[in-house]
């Protein structure tokens, strides 16, 4: 069976029609005055899911989390948590903990007391609190900073304290607003995997807001791509990447080339698209648009092949152009190819070998080619 991308684990309650969502947003709208921050949003999140919210700044991600945590009231719609409408429940009684985008550490308390704060509120015995705090400190690698105050820590260290504090109570649902933004790349990657392990181990449900696509792709079971208070697509990372449902998602996630044109033939799950670049793309299309309608074709740079010679197989889609720019990134090389129509497309090639024999150079004439299933047809 063919599938999109690697499947991390066989966890997919969203495909099961009988599975009950753990968190449900039902037609939730949030207005600040005239401004609509969250717009008639419906979204299901399942128990033990690692769910990521991805979207441009100001699209309403934090507002969504804050409604779940209880700091904002939806203007309309309802939020169901574990079968219960949580509208009337104050934040301090919700089984939800949040890591704030601004960290919101208590400035007058040491790192230890910050982390233990929630446990003290629950009246946990002192010894247990100490043990849990120690465990959390170990998790975020801040053992030697236990006695410090927040203002004596670096930005990344504060972020880790905030993370530890929100995790300490092991809430049913953990909301993380940009949890790793201030960490350097290495620590960030480590922490990503630690978070995933922890989530698995404790069986928690995580909702993570992030700006970083790679981070969302790495950690999440599913990703919701948001724009202007609406969810545009909810799907697994592989689906989002390989089968974006719209131009917005295709463009937002990763690099993409979009070719516009008109459908010249359609049938049997395949279409021919006469592109504005002067060549025809023959491609598979899941639900093919009708002949004559306008459509777009999205293809990722790594799925384009750049060669000097025309592809031998005539069924392969191909167009001619010249090398406009070459970007060497170490792990791969990105070619900007200016097609004869004037449009510049990006193609990337993995540098699997250290040395390349006779590489293509600037201004050379080349062929750009791709197979029938390499791209996605966008109807909008």
């Amino acid at each position, binding site marked *: 069976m063919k599938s999109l991308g690697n499947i991390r684990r066989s966890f997919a309650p969203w495909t099961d029609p009988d599975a009950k969502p753990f968190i449900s947003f039902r037609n939730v709208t949030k207005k600040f005055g005239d401004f609509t921050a969250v717009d008639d949003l419906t979204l299901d999140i399942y128990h033990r899911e690692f769910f990521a919210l991805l979207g441009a700044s100001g699209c309403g991600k934090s507002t969504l989390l804050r409604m779940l*945590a*209880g*700091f904002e009231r939806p203007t309309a719609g309802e939020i169901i948590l574990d079968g219960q409408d949580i509208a009337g429940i*104050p*934040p*301090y*009684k919700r089984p*939800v*903990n*949040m890591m*704030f985008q*601004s*960290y*919101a*550490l*208590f*400035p*007058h308390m040491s790192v230890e007391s910050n982390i233990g*704060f*929630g446990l003290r*509120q*629950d009246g946990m015995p002192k010894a247990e609190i100490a043990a849990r705090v120690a465990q959390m400190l170990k998790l975020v690698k801040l053992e030697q900073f236990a006695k410090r*105050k*927040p*203002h004596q*820590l*670096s*930005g*990344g260290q*504060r*972020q880790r304290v905030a993370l530890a*504090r*929100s995790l300490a*109570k092991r809430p049913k649902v953990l909301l993380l607003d940009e949890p790793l*933004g*201030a960490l350097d790349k290495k620590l960030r990657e480590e922490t990503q995997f630690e978070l995933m392990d922890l989530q698995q181990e404790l069986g928690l449900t995580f909702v993570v807001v992030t700006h970083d696509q790679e981070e969302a792709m790495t950690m999440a079971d599913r990703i919701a791509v948001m724009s202007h208070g609406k969810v545009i697509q909810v799907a697994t990372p592989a689906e989002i990447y390989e089968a974006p449902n719209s131009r917005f998602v295709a463009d937002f996630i990763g690099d993409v080339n979009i070719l516009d044109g008109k459908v010249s033939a359609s049938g049997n799950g395949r279409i021919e698209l006469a592109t504005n670049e002067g060549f025809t793309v023959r491609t598979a299309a899941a639900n093919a648009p009708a002949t004559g309608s306008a459509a777009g074709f999205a293809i990722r740079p790594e799925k384009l092949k750049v060669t000097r010679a025309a592809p031998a197989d005539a069924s392969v889609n191909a167009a001619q152009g010249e090398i406009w720019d070459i970007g060497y990134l170490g792990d791969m090389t990105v070619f900007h190819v200016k097609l004869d129509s004037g449009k510049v497309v990006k193609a990337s090639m993995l540098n699997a070998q250290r040395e390349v024999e006779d590489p293509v150079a600037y201004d050379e004439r080349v062929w750009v080619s791709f197979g029938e299933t390499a791209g996605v047809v966008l109807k909008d």
Partner: protein
Amino acid sequence: MNSWSRFNIVSVVLGFTFLYLPIVLLVIFSFNESKLVTVWAGFSFKWYVSLFHNQGLMDAAWVTVRVGLLAASIATVLGTMAALALTRYTRFRGRLLFSGMVYAPLVMPEVITGLSLLLLFVAIGFDRGFWTVTLAHITFSMCFVTVVVQSRLLSFDRSIEEAALDLGATPVRTFFEVTLPVIAPAVLSGWMLALTLSLDDLVIASFTSGPGATTLPMKIYSQVRLGVTPEINAACTILIGLVAIGVVIASVMTKRREIQRQRDEQAAFAGR
């Protein structure tokens, strides 16, 4: 810019002389050996000694201290509450009126405050004495506390309160475990200010006090009318000392609070 022009020097000297010469003279003559206030006859502590044997003055001092501590403490509680209401519930009806009214006593002539309180106490048949002075002092010093605490609250990062609620603290616990400790320096300097104001108030106390509740400034004022004695100088010197200490502590705390606040804010908004 740093060069001191002659004009600058002259104006600074004149200004400070004008402000502090009388006080300096008073302090100097409190150590005078002679009974005559204006003739120097050598250094002595004798007026301080006799001051402590002057039962009338000592009683008045004791009243002043009690009124000051009580009034400052209650004014601090009320003033802090008013500051919280004014900064937190920004949309209640009549907020503008309320905040204006809180500030009014700051600029109200003391005579008017004193007189109106007197009329009130008389009208409701409240016997004048210790409690009326205390009430009056609470009334006029409360707004100073409000101003000090309010300026702190305006820069208070409320997300730490949300974090506390989120971690399961009830609103009351959140206030006592998070909000209050963070604004404590401002509350404390508000208290210092209220205490200082109460200690040296003459006008309002004169209107509202009754038999047996003469405060030190009132006592001094009435004695001076019978002639200045070096004993009064000594009492005033002590009073000046106390007030100066209070003001210095309050301003040092304000300064430290500023620095602390900047740090706290960096703590809260770090990273981006």
